[in-house]
């Protein structure tokens, strides 16, 4: 038996096909890694328009007459846009200033233009706004972003005090509850401002700012779900868990200053290995699984094999085992290739950054080494990969048709996402016994809620095994009884 498996592996590794496929994967890896590297590097000055675009706006502005009531709204909008851009252009060297202009001044600009050109003209109001704008720009000139952050903090504190005093004045339960929620939301705003000051995070669009805004929205959502009186539905429970996870992750990032979600790093790519490169693995694996038997039939060498002193069951089983070994080979060599390509492009430093997962069983964050995480993911993806390989193997054995075997298996892989989405969208609970819902075990990791209520890890493994046996047993029986016709 072991010599049969050895022979199968020799046959596979002496063929050029597998090497051509691996080289193709290697080239794709280089291509995709380059995309990751250069996609993120051009994010600076996201606020700024191109010169051409601005000129075309200015031209349009000249053609409009603010006196004309049909033009006036557009005129105000475009005018404010031009002013905003000019202001930004002035401060384009500091990203935090752009962020401040965008969040605080842009609404003032529109307001001022409304007083200047709109239906209710008011010179005094406009002047007042101009003063406000000038005050802010003066602060911008001082180069002190902390002023704005502490202003945020102050505003939040004041609001909390105010809400607290309001709370004491009322007895109405409904109002009390609303106030309570508002206080909680304001406390988050306060916390964000504190983070900004304590961790020295200037305004901008970098990952820390994104983390801050993610933290805010996740926390807000949690407050909303917590105050909900009815029991959470399964869908809501999943969203609640997501928010819980995001909140914990954001706090981790802000507290440690480690960007665990950095996608343009070797660790980031390895962490999402299966979602990014899964298709390559599947194509190569299915290609080998879909030819391992049919090739022997098509070339006539099956007769050579079947007159050796081994039962047909052993011969077919050895081919199946060889296919499973190839699965591990393809995964391992793709990981190694990614290590090479990613390491050269991004450096190996990121490998020391842990992967963060929120464990819903212990309600704690777990730090996992990226390789351990990759191992866990591999185990979780294995049912899907093995089942797809088996599908190709079975079709190629039954019909001696490699093209059919490969095509159907790839279709199976690619339609998984759509099938699962439809099943969830229409809440088809019988689908929880369907293979595509069960063959990705990563849904069960870290106490996550699975796709549908009533699914469990054990049940999924059993379902996958049932599918495996339903495919394999008839194939072995048919192969055993098969008449080897003329070739």
């Amino acid at each position: 038996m072991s010599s049969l498996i050895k022979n199968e592996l020799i046959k596979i590794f002496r063929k050029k096909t597998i090497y051509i496929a691996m080289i193709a994967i290697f080239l794709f890896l280089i291509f995709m890694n380059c995309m990751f590297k250069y996609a993120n590097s051009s994010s600076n000055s996201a606020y700024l328009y191109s010169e051409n675009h601005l000129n075309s706006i200015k031209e349009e502005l000249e053609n409009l007459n603010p006196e004309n009531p049909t033009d006036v709204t557009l005129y105000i909008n475009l005018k404010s846009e031009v002013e905003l851009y000019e202001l930004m252009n002035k401060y384009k060297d500091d990203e935090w200033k752009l962020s401040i202009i965008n969040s605080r001044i842009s609404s003032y600009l529109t307001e001022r233009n409304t007083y200047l050109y709109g239906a209710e003209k008011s010179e005094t109001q406009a002047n007042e706004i101009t003063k406000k704008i000038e005050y802010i720009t003066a602060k911008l000139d001082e180069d002190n972003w902390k002023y704005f952050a502490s202003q945020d903090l102050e505003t939040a504190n004041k609001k909390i005090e105010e809400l607290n005093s309001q709370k004491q004045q009322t007895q109405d339960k409904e109002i009390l509850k609303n106030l309570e929620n508002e206080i909680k939301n304001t406390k988050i705003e306060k916390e964000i401002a504190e983070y900004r000051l304590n961790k020295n995070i200037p305004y901008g669009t970098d990952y820390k700012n994104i983390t801050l805004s993610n933290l805010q929205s996740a926390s807000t959502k949690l407050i909303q779900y917590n105050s909900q009186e009815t029991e959470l539905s399964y869908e809501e429970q999943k969203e609640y868990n997501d928010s819980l996870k995001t909140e914990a992750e954001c706090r981790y990032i802000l507290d440690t200053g480690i960007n665990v979600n950095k996608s343009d790093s070797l660790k980031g790519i390895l962490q999402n290995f299966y979602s990014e490169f899964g298709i390559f693995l599947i194509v190569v694996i299915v290609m080998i699984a879909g030819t391992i038997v049919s090739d022997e039939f098509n070339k006539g060498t099956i007769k050579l094999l079947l007159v050796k002193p081994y039962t047909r069951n052993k011969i077919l089983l050895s081919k199946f085992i060889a296919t499973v070994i190839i699965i591990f080979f393809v995964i391992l060599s793709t990981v190694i290739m990614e290590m090479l390509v990613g390491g050269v492009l991004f450096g190996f430093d990121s490998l020391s950054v842990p992967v963060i997962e929120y464990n819903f069983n212990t309600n704690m964050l777990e730090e996992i080494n990226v390789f351990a995480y990759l191992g866990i993911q591999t185990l979780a993806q294995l049912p899907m990969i093995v089942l797809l390989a088996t599908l190709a193997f079975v079709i190629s054995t039954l019909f001696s048709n490699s093209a059919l075997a490969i095509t159907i298996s790839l279709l199976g892989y690619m339609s998984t996402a759509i099938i699962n989405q439809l099943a969830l969208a229409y809440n088809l609970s019988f689908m929880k016994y369907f293979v595509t819902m069960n063959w990705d075990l990563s849904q069960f990791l870290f106490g996550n809620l699975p796709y549908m209520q009533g699914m469990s890890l054990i049940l999924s493994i059993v379902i996958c095994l049932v599918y495996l046996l339903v495919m394999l047993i008839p194939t072995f029986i048919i192969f055993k009884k098969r008449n080897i016709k003329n070739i």
Partner: protein
Amino acid sequence: METILKCENLYKTFGKKTILKDVSLEVNEGDILGFIGPNGAGKTTTIKLILGLQSITKGNVSINGYDIEKNFTNAIKRVGAIVENPDMYMYLTGFQNLKLVANLYKDVSEDRINEVVKLVKLENRIKDKVSKYSLGMRQRLGIAQAILHKPNLLILDEPTNGLDPEGIKEMRELLVDLASIEKMGILISSHNLAELDNFCNKVCIIKNGKIIETSEISKIKQEASKEVKIFEVNNVNLAEEIIGKIEKIDTNKFKIKVPKQEVPEIVEKLVKNNIKIYEVKQEEKTLEDAFFEKTGGNIIE
């Protein structure tokens, strides 16, 4: 002499079509059995049944005492075979192909591979890819893989296909050696009757899925040519006038179908009429002639 292969009353049907009807044959130690029949007679099907490549509808096959269907691995253990074409892994070298086969048997050493390669005279090309081989070279490699594990039954389906006359001669010598020295039983199917003529000791003729003759080769030829005598004389036309119905071969030779006892009578008649007789001999029939006599041409049902 021990019986190695024994087929008893084999039947094979595909759907309603009966391919083989009551096929029985035997191969003993040291036998070279020529398995002859026109296209579509069921030669390859019989071989596939013997090798367990197709299921047997009725009857049984035993090799070295083991039933092929009930005890496949033991039955096939000491069998070497080429079925239809010498299909090898084209992307491997000849040596790698043999190594694959060697891996599947116990005690086939590298030395044995080299020995067999020398035996089939492939030593110069054994490191080349099989895709670069001619059909004749593939045929040699096919024989090499079949005898690698020292089987005692060799089954060869059209092994002379694609071999040049030199190659055919070499293979014939090789097979005769294997049969006489290694005491192998060999079953060889072929269209090339002239080839079988010289080295098979038994022949089995199949037509429309039925065995129509099984016997020693010498017997068949004797039987077919028993009655025919060839005369070499100086005047064929005169001889015709005197004896009556003869078959003229050329100006000096004619054939006549008479029992042995009547030969002196004819000679006397010819001598009396002053015809000179140079030679009188019994016609030697080739296997091919005998074959056509038995099968009556080539009709596929």
